């Protein structure tokens, strides 16, 4: 093991992996943003990475090293074997730009990553330190890429037209000269496909779901958390089990029952069924919160002559307000994103919820950009709510997210 911890070797290995990662990422980024044909060169980026890695052992000035690597990269590039290869059609300035990006994002972080290493043998701590820093950097790039790309593709596809999409699927650059024409798919969705009404249906269905869920689950959760009665544990457990019954198992009988009673294809039916799917989870989340509240306050209230209902209304609920906000957001999210029941129970376009509306766009007759625009419309509101109320939402997710 001692030989592995040689500073030169580690610096070279980490250097080449890092440089290669950066080369790939820059090639992908440049392809996606310009539509030109970029690809990384395995060999050149490896060699440049090794060289940079070894250099950092002796010389650690970030700007100078970056500029140095940039100059070398541009020279390599003009000779025809840059770390990021491109077709002849691409202009030299774009090539140079890619090379400079590559140089900066290779050299600068590498100096930080390999900070702890020194020429010759290094001890275990410094070695692991370098490896962890490399993995951290790699992890951020990896996770950000895999999370962002599908959403980026979704957004950009919705701004294109059929012809552009077929011509070059990689070209996600936005042609600003088109002006409002960029949003043509959205105008068509709201104009011809009735997405305005879907949006409204989804919104009020979700809000009603939240209200009904809270009305049912707050008293229930309070009973489970605070009151002593026979079968309390059994009840708490059966809530968990019921919560795990897959929707598809229930959807079939519900479909049959709704077909027979004429509730299929009505928003009333949807509003009747959604809260019941969320009550168990809301109850489970809320009883956890209620248990965490100090009971002494409630006891004091009882001693002072408040009735149980008044205690719940005047003491417990105000104290649990943040928790209720979290639960409401979580339930809203479940109802907004619900797909299966809406898909099975709604056939009439005038009653579609947003998710059902988007799924109706998934046919060969409707162009791709419409589908993606529909996806954006469905995603955007939930994202806005999520980002603006991130703290509540994260709490809600952590507490209740036994659910998928």
């Amino acid at each position, binding site marked *: 093991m001692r030989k592995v911890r040689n500073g030169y070797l580690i610096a070279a290995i980490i250097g080449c992996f890092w440089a290669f990662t950066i080369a790939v990422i820059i090639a992908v980024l440049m392809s996606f943003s310009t539509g030109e044909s970029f690809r990384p060169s395995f060999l050149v980026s490896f060699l440049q990475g090794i060289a940079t890695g070894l250099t950092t052992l002796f010389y650690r000035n970030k700007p100078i090293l970056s500029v140095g690597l940039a100059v070398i990269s541009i020279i390599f590039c003009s000779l025809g074997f840059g770390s990021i290869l491109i077709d002849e059609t691409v202009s030299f300035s774009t090539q140079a730009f890619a090379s400079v990006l590559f140089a900066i994002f290779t050299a600068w972080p590498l100096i930080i990553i390999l900070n702890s290493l020194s020429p010759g043998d290094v001890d275990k701590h410094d070695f692991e330190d370098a490896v962890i820093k490399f993995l951290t950097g790699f*992890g951020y790039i990896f996770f950000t890429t895999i*999370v962002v790309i599908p959403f980026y593709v979704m957004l950009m596809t919705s701004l294109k037209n059929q012809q552009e999409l077929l011509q070059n699927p*990689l070209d996600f650059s936005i042609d600003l000269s088109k002006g409002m024409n960029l949003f043509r798919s959205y105008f068509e969705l709201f104009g011809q496909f009735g997405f305005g009404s879907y949006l409204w249906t989804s919104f009020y269905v979700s809000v009603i779901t939240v209200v009904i869920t809270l009305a049912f689950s707050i008293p229930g959760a309070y009973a489970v958390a605070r009151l002593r009665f026979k079968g309390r544990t059994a009840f708490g*457990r059966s809530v968990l089990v019921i919560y795990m019954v*897959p929707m598809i198992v229930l959807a079939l009988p519900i479909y049959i029952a709704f077909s027979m009673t004429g509730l299929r294809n009505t928003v009333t039916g949807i509003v009747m069924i959604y809260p019941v799917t969320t009550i168990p989870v809301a109850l489970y989340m809320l009883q956890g919160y209620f248990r965490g509240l100090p009971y002494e306050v409630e006891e004091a209230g009882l001693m002072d002559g408040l009735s149980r209902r008044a205690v719940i209304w005047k003491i417990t609920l105000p104290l649990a307000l943040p928790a209720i906000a979290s639960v409401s957001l979580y339930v809203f999210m479940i109802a907004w994103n619900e797909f299966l029941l809406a898909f099975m129970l709604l056939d009439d376009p005038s009653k579609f919820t947003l998710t059902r509306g988007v799924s109706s766009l998934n046919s060969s007759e409707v162009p791709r950009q419409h589908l993606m625009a529909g996806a954006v419309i469905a995603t955007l509101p939930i994202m806005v709510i999520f980002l603006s109320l991130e703290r509540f939402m994260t709490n809600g997710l952590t507490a209740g997210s036994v659910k*998928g």
Partner: protein
Amino acid sequence: MTPSVPPTGNGPLGKREARLAWLLLFPTIISVSIVVLLPLIAIFWISFKPIGLEDLRPPETVVREQLLGRPSADGDVATIRYRLRNSSQKKPVEDVTLSDTLPDGLVIVSLDERCVLNGLVFVCTLGDFEGGQRETVEVTVTVGRIFLDSSINLSDTPAVVTGTSENILTNSEFTLENFVRFFNGQEFWSVLFATLFYTIVGTIGAVVVGLFAALLLNNDFKGKGLIRGLYLFPYVAPVIAVAFSWVTLLDPFSGSLNALLVQMRVVESPINFFGQRPLALIMVTIFEIWRYFPLSFLFILARMQSIDTDMYEAADIDGASPFQKFWYLSLPMLLGILSVLFLLRFIWTFNKFDDIFLLTGGSAGTRTLTVNVYEQAFAISNIGAGAAVAVVIFGFLLAFSIFFLKFISREEGL
């Protein structure tokens, strides 16, 4: 003096408390039993029934009424023809009767021999209809001025048909065929394999990837909240949106990823990610990992931040390296949450339907048990078979839940 002992049994106060508790729980219990327990019983019932989608509507006789002879003047003779048809091709309808009131101005001349005139109403007794049987009843009338002048149509006084038929849902016909066919079918093993692969690999993948993401975000830095929010996107976004973006991204003809791979010379020709046999299953599993790693990372991160830092300081003084700290301190502390997470995710992944349904529709070897329920019930229109699969799923689920509850009561004292 007797030694003082705590009171046993339920005092009046205790009883009142219990009563209040049940009162508060009452709405939840009622609604949940209606929407969860009743359907569960129903699904067991249906799974033993030879029932298809078309049997949901019990067979009945439908009638069409037509005025023949184009009467134009007072006193013209015309014929009203009633065409009756059994809506079901297989099931009989018994004791069919037809009755109709004729509008003013029509006077009955002659009736079909099966019919009796009763004032203004005539009633025909038509006996039993076999599956798909058709009958015609004709009534000859003279047309009066009142009818011709008024704008009355024959359909304004619709003919009434009655008949009794057996409803397959409620009769006492039971069969085990749904189960036999499912377990004997060729697809049984492939469905089971797809389910197990998707569930096990998907769950482990989501937990492990989530662990890495949590390790990444366990440092404090500027913009951490933003990154954490960003990494939650896959889970928070509607499944329908992300599934369709994946399909668009991975499309073999116009997908960006294929274009990218071809351009980078990684592959020769575009790959059909969701259409090839082993690859489709791997891709839906990767999608599952992608979509649910945020959840595990959120859980693990919350647990990580509650670990006491003293321990790490002690380890630092003892000279432990970062890897040693992770392996000997963090991991044992996280083991509890990891196993709870694994079990929960296992159950939920097992139950997952939307994702695979939207990505592949269950083709190319990605048909899991849940997708199979839909396939059987709606694509093949065999509700009984779908219900049988649902019962099998429920059996699995019950086994998992018992295991989980045993485990979680040890872990969390619930």
